[in-house]
């Protein structure tokens, strides 16, 4: 009976959570993958550079957030825009201790928000690695990234200083949770219209992917048929030659 009641409650709770998709962007080595493991509550934050895609689901208050983590290396950034259509908002992670790359980070950031499938969505900027001595404070990062120019490009934006990595036995940096709360609430404000937009973009993308797959299959099948035909013709030619050689003069 008790478990029945518990199930009743948990299934009810599950339904109540609002599904939201959020994508991590930012240069390589910014700390996106580390941030995601921290958000998941993991303490072992050993990472290898991402040159691919990972997806994690984490419940945050009344939101069930699916996080996309993609690689940020220069050669790989071009693939980010393939995911913009599916997201409600994004988290841009920046390495606050790497002053030399702030210009590059700014370029990448604005290229993202200017993409038609991104513009108008919400953006949280995490000024990461604040634990490092040489780190630059968030307000200075905001200046260097020229965040004020985001106003006309996104629904809302916000920047918070934080550390994805904490010294041993120290609890997770509360700024991260605060940021996620801010982002989910900001997404919630335009939830209905966002959902409609995402639904449409994803339908278009799925259709496109299906067409591409079918086209490939067709080309491969055609090539195979041609090869088989050639092989058959070759075989027949050989047979003919053989029988010609065998037939009496």
């Amino acid at each position, binding site marked *: 009976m008790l478990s029945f009641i518990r199930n009743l409650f948990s299934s009810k709770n599950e339904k109540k959570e609002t599904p939201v998709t959020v994508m991590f962007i930012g240069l390589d080595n910014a700390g996106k993958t580390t941030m995601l493991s921290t958000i998941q509550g993991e303490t072992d934050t050993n990472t290898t550079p991402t*040159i691919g895609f990972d997806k994690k689901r984490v419940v945050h208050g009344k939101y069930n957030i699916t996080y996309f983590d993609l690689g940020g290396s220069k050669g790989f950034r071009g693939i980010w825009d393939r995911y913009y259509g599916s997201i409600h908002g994004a988290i841009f992670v920046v390495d606050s201790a790497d002053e030399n790359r702030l210009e590059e980070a700014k370029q990448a950031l604005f290229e993202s928000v200017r993409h038609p499938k991104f513009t108008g969505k919400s953006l949280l900027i995490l000024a990461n690695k604040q634990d490092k001595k040489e780190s630059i404070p968030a307000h200075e990062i905001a200046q260097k990234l020229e965040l004020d120019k985001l106003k006309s490009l996104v629904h809302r934006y916000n920047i918070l200083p934080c550390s994805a990595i904490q010294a041993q036995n120290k609890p997770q940096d509360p700024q991260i949770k605060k940021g996620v709360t801010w982002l989910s609430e900001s997404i919630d404000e335009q939830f209905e219209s966002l959902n409609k937009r995402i639904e449409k973009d994803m339908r278009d993308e799925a259709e496109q992917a299906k067409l591409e797959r079918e086209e490939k299959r067709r*080309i491969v099948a055609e090539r195979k048929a041609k090869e088989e035909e050639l092989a058959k013709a070759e075989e027949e030619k050989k047979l003919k030659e053989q029988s010609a050689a065998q037939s009496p003069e």
Partner: protein
Amino acid sequence: MGLLTLLRKLKRSDKEARLLILGLDNSGKTSCLRKLADEDISQTTPTQGFNIKTVMSSGFKLNVWDIGGQKAIRPYWQNYFESTDGLVYVIDSSDQKRLQETSVELNQLLEEEKLSGVPIMVLANKQDLLNALSAKQIAEELGLHSIRDRTWQIQACSAKTGEGLQQGMEWLVNTLG
């Protein structure tokens, strides 16, 4: 070292992981596996059936199955899908003519129920060759961005020089946890 060092990083409780190496014929599956095991790769011949490499270290066990990629053998791949923890899919990055073919094969694998959710490491092999496409180009050609039901990673590598192999496997082992 290679596989052994990686094994020590496996944290999973059952201390055993099963990897499958697939890809078209001539993509370099066996060479990648041999290079990782520090073996000579100059003498590989087309794999007619399969090779199994089991590596053990401090109680951990990694079983790697390398299955031949020739067209006639491909239908048998499915006999090996059961209880696979990770898939390594090897591409000959220099063979542009066969990218579509390998893409079709990969898409079929992605639809296999027994492999659903299995993490994929795509090895963009033969990077030592001048005409090799970059990992990003391969990712585009294969349409990897439409894989949303599992984690994937692409690694540029060369079984000849060994470049990238270790990183690729390290990611997979990390991911298996």
